[in-house]
């Protein structure tokens, strides 16, 4: 025994000396489906070192696949790495709000971690745990773009954990727009050069020209525009995209949806009405049934090559560029069309812009948070930090159905997207469109106030009535404004103003 002990001592010392002198071999985590672990505060290696055995985390998220699938995947990975038990509940979008809100209001600690639409922050903020400083200082968080840091912040405090970045932008077919023959024919037929639409009027004209023709020669008719136009299926976002450049004057501060000072709704102002009229007019360039298209139909229509143009989130663009897509690398991104005339509510007149006014719409997107009532806050934040770590985020971005879109500066890297098989124009136009939205000084954000669902539901109904021809654009939006005033009354002007000030700060670049 003595001999052995005498031997073990020096051998251990020798082993320690060797291990200290040799560079550490990075552990292989590719069995988790990632290309490789990337260094960072919540990398696989760091998470692997934590031990949460015997503890559990309850997570509520959207139905599979959008956000639900990455939640389930990363929950399983987190459980394997840390020994924690992670229970994930998947809920359809229509039920998600109330499934989170009811336990909040009844003070039940139902879920530790929540994944939801970021615009609900106006309702959820009082139930959420602020993100602790150590996570704010994490490597992943440091690279989140300003817009999405703003989206996660409420009254100067970060209470949502960024894990997605969404915005609306224009997508179009380059095989048509860049085709010399098509350009010549368009010029001959219309007297105008075929260019990527600069205004929504241009968009409607180009869409109408290419509607109901087999312009890709596959024997099937093609159409001008695919838009999310189905009531109660995110159509409110499409309308905001269309109305924004007419209603968001770059020199007028203090509110886009409301006048922050008086809290009078601006939804029936001439800018919004112009946007709605153009939305109604665009219907003639939709594919058959297009005015009943939800987001899934829009993705399928543009991503499947049926339509010339579209605008919404990244999904259709990613779908169009997936390996099995017949229009891979035949699409490009561009800023949302703008407006040559913008309503100035200070002067009560239309202002003419020689360069069209653009108002990029940073439209909601998914976010995550930890409940104030959670008894496992540290583990919950560790899970979110792991969910959004550098390796996972990059991996998730590449899978269209996951619904995770660029939200860090490193995601806006042309080479990364070229690495996915995207050609120059497809990758460059995408990255430049998204990057320029970040730099815009005239952005529009969602109405992130208490009762946002009531406001948006009322707006969607009014817009749908105009789209269906039941009311004129002005009458429909007058009805919405009346309802908004009633909702404001019920919530209380002061409470609403205090919340809306957070949105105005972002829009007026003061946040």
């Amino acid at each position, binding site marked *: 025994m003595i001999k052995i002990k005498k031997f073990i001592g020096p051998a251990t010392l020798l082993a320690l000396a060797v291990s200290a002198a040799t560079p550490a071999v990075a552990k292989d985590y590719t069995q988790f489906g990632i290309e490789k672990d990337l260094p960072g505060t919540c990398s696989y290696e760091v998470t692997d070192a934590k031990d949460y055995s015997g503890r559990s985390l309850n997570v509520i998220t959207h139905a599979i696949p959008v956000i639900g699938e990455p939640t389930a995947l990363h929950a399983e990975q987190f459980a394997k790495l840390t020994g924690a038990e992670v229970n994930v509940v998947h809920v359809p979008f*229509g*039920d998600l*709000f*109330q499934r989170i*809100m009811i336990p909040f*209001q*009844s003070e039940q600690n139902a879920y530790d971690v929540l994944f939801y639409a970021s615009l609900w922050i106006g*309702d959820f903020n009082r139930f959420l745990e602020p993100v602790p400083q150590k996570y704010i200082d994490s490597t992943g968080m440091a690279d989140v773009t300003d817009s999405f840091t703003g989206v996660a912040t409420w009254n100067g405090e970060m209470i949502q954990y960024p894990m997605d970045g969404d915005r609306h932008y224009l997508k179009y077919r380059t095989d048509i727009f860049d085709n010399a023959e098509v350009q010549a024919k368009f010029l001959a037929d219309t007297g105008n050069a075929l260019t990527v639409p600069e205004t929504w009027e241009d968009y409607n004209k180009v869409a109408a020209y290419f509607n109901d023709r087999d312009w890709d020669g596959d024997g099937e008719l093609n159409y001008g525009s695919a838009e999310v136009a*189905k*009531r*109660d*299926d995110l159509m409110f976002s499409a309308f905001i995209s269309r109305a924004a450049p007419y209603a968001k004057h770059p020199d007028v501060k203090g509110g886009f949806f409301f006048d922050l000072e008086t809290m009078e709704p601006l939804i029936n102002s001439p800018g919004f009405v112009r946007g709605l009229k153009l939305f109604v007019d665009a219907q003639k360039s939709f*594919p*058959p*049934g*297009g*005015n*009943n298209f*939800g987001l899934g139909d829009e993705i399928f229509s543009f991503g499947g090559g*049926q339509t010339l143009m579209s605008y919404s989130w990244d999904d259709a663009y990613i779908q169009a560029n997936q390996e099995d897509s017949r229009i891979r690398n035949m699409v490009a991104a561009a800023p949302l069309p703008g407006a040559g005339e913008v309503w100035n509510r200070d002067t009560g007149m239309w202002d003419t812009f020689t360069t069209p006014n653009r108002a990029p719409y940073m439209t909601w997107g998914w976010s995550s948070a930890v409940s104030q009532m959670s008894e496992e806050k540290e583990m919950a934040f560790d899970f979110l930090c792991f969910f959004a770590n550098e390796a996972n985020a990059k991996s998730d971005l590449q899978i269209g159905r996951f619904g995770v879109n660029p939200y860090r500066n490193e995601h806006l890297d042309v080479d990364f997207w070229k690495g996915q098989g995207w050609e120059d124009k497809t990758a460059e136009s995408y990255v430049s469109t998204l990057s320029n939205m970040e730099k815009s000084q005239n952005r529009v954000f969602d109405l992130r106030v*208490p*009762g946002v*669902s*009531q406001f948006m*539901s009322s707006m969607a*109904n009014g817009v*749908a*009535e105009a*789209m*269906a*021809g*039941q009311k004129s654009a002005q009458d429909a939006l007058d009805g919405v404004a009346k309802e908004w005033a009633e909702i404001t009354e*019920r*919530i209380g002007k002061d*409470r609403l103003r205090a919340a809306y000030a957070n949105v105005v700060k972002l829009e007026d670049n003061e946040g």
Partner: protein
Amino acid sequence: MLSSKHFFLLPALLTLVAIILFPLLFTVRVSFSSWDVFQSGLDFIGGRNYVRVFEDDRFWQSLQRLSLLSIISVSLQYTLGFALALAVWKQVRGGRLLRVLFLIPMMTTPVVMSVIWRTVFHESLGPVNDILSVFGVGPVPWLSSAMGAFISVLIVEVWQWTPFMFLLLLAGLVSLPKEPYLAAAIDGAGTWRTFWQVTFPLMAPITIGALIIRLIEASKIMDTVYVLTSGGPGTATETSSYYIYIRGLRDFQIGYSAALSLVYLVIMVISLTIIAKLLLRMLVGRDE
């Protein structure tokens, strides 16, 4: 005086209170509160929610739409269901198989079937317009025009619930006595006359029951509308239940939606009672 035998009623009474009375009374209480997304809990705001209901044009329009939809769809279900029941009532070849086939739509989940029907009615990719185009018809705006969407909802409803009518009416037909038919045959009544003067009157009690049950069910239509049209285009297919769902679960106006639900319940109870009495008078010739 309470005796020990009354205690045997206790489990049933407690169940009744728990299942029916408590939710109903709680809904009544909630309807007098402003429980909302920004105001949780049961405060008391008097009848303000009820005043709002009576000023809510969208609710009343949805109720009119629902009435029309229910009356048309239940009438069609009854007619088709009766015809199918008569077809398999007598021994026919493959009758058992037909009975099972007829029941399949009723056994499927409404949400799943609505998703399938939405694909069927898809205006550019769905098979219905493809088939119609062979005959030079279309494309028909099934879901994107007000009339088309209304008819689409109607078709799905009729398809899904005709089997229920079929089942009830077939059970009724099977239980009919043989003697009136023998008498009719001796009197030389033909098929048509036998149906109108024997079968139809004998089936009246079952007819009334089936119609009332289906009207109650049809008036709650929600899932088909939700999946197929989301109440659109515009508000063309928005029914009362879907509207209450929007107000309650999407807008989270719990107090107001409770008031809407109770007003709707009262209207349904009154109107269905009147309908039942009218049917009794028309089909049986008496009130009770």
